[in-house]
């Protein structure tokens, strides 16, 4: 038996495989496909203080080895989540994180205060990196003072694990990571989507209603790996890596680069059973390499 358990702050995950926000709904949508109890954890859809309709269709464009999305944080708001959705997933034997987004520091604070009252929730993943709504988080996430201010404010009102999700749309991600760690983050997750664009040449029009959107999938993996590596070298808090992970080998690459856990996003659309396959694949890799503890892989890149 190999040890797959990892810790994010004081939250123990049974394995390092989580799902990425916005790609896994609220979990129960996958119950026909997989046993949710097998996941290390799952991060639910981006949630805001007030309900949001999201952006107009078309919100998606397929691109080489990936996709652009411009969903724009469509969700029913944090109160609805707490009252109607959380009861349906709270008994799953896995860790649930809520991806919290906002357009003002005040929104983040009130949202975090409400979530602080929810028993059994593993933590918040603070989204300061959504590229798809005006002032929708990314405005905070691309400068050190902005990131620091919102993390500090939420830290003051939130007691459980505070994971902060970083944007790749910055010049120096390590600098932002240090600011976020200094402001009290327990963990850092990255990357959110890369700002991109798609054009329909025949119609001479942008494909997305918003013109620009967020790129995800295998196309972003090299950028994501590089950023995880840079942040791992810059901070001490555990890192949750993501961006283009499609299989166990991809996941192990992120662990080697310094991530304590990983999230799978777009891969869930291609194969709704992928998360469980990645857990099994990591185990198989460890057996093949005679590694008994996952911690011997984390940050284990040989230079």
């Amino acid at each position, binding site marked *: 038996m190999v040890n797959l358990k990892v810790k994010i702050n004081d939250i123990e995950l049974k394995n390092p495989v989580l799902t990425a926000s*916005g*790609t*896994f*709904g609220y979990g129960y*949508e*996958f119950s*026909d*496909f997989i046993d949710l109890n097998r996941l290390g954890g799952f991060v639910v*859809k981006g949630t805001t203080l007030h309900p949001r*309709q*999201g952006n*107009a*269709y*078309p*919100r*998606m464009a*397929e*691109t*080489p*080895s*990936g*996709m652009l*999305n411009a*969903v724009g944080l*469509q969700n029913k708001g944090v109160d609805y989540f707490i009252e109607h959705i959380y009861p349906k997933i709270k008994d799953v034997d896995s860790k649930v994180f809520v991806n919290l987004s906002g357009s003002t520091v005040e929104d983040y604070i009130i949202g975090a205060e409400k979530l602080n009252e929810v028993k059994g929730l593993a933590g918040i993943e603070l989204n300061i990196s959504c590229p798809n709504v005006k002032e929708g988080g990314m405005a905070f996430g691309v400068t050190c003072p902005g990131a620091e201010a919102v993390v500090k404010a939420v830290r003051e009102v939130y007691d459980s694990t505070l994971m902060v999700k970083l944007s790749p749309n910055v010049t120096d991600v390590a600098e932002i990571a240090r600011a976020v760690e200094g402001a009290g983050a327990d963990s850092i997750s990255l990357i959110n989507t890369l700002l991109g664009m798609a054009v329909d040449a025949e119609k001479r029009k942008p494909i997305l209603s918003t013109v620009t959107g967020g790129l995800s*999938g*295998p196309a972003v993996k090299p950028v994501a790996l590089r950023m995880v590596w840079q942040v791992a070298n810059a901070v001490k808090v555990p890192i949750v890596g993501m961006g283009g992970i499609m299989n166990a080998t991809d996941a192990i690459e992120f662990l080697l680069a310094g991530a304590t856990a990983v999230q799978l996003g777009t891969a*869930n*659309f*291609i*194969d*709704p*059973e992928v998360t469980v396959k990645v857990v099994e694949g990591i185990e198989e890799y460890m057996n093949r390499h005679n590694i008994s503890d996952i911690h011997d892989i984390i940050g284990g890149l040989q230079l």
Partner: protein
Amino acid sequence: MNKTVQELAIKENVQLNEDTNLLIFEAPDLKEDLLPGQFANVLVKDSTTTFLRRPFSIYDFDKKTGSFSLIIKKVGDGTRKLCQFNAGEKLSVIYPLGKSFSLPNRDEKVLLIGGGSGIAPMMIMAKAIAHLTSEIHILLGARAAKDHIELEKFEKVGKLHLTTEDGSLGEKGFVIHHSLFNDIKSFDRIYTCGPNPMMKAIGDIAIENDVPCEVSLENMMGCGFGVCLCCVTDTHDKGHQCVCTDGPVFNAKEVKW
């Protein structure tokens, strides 16, 4: 029936005309009815250009032999590649997805309208309602005679009416120009699938004439099972609704085109 993702073998790949194929899949686990309007999301194996799955309406199914079929019109890389796979090869398919058309009441006079690849759900629909009514009219539209497919099969499941844009078969014009529309009030229900402008035009006429009408939308999809929120259509009462899980079938009155 629960959703599943499975590697299904192609039982037959039949070229219907120069740009459309019929793909029959072996589905040995198929024990329950697939519902009219439901779709399957197919992974385009070994493609360097097609990353996401491609959705297709269920055309027909057979529980006895354990099989179901899709009609695939080649419009881009993904559909072209899918039409090249041979019998015996396996493809990853997620199915059944989406909600069904609602069924008519007994002995109601029903009009099914399909345009382009939107003819697919009309076959499974006609078969699903055969026990309820014998008044099933099927109106299919295409550009030219050569684009009309599967006509012998459609003739067996309803009274068939055709239009072509060039007049080479059936009445000339779009489906809404067909003479059936002269007495559209004589129908109790309309069900349609096809290009959006066609469905909107039919929906508008149906609403004007007080005939209940359901449309099956074909928005672009990221996942097909309700988690990416990419496929939404705007509606009058409920705001953005997912075409893949709240639809693909909607009441024509609900949709904000």
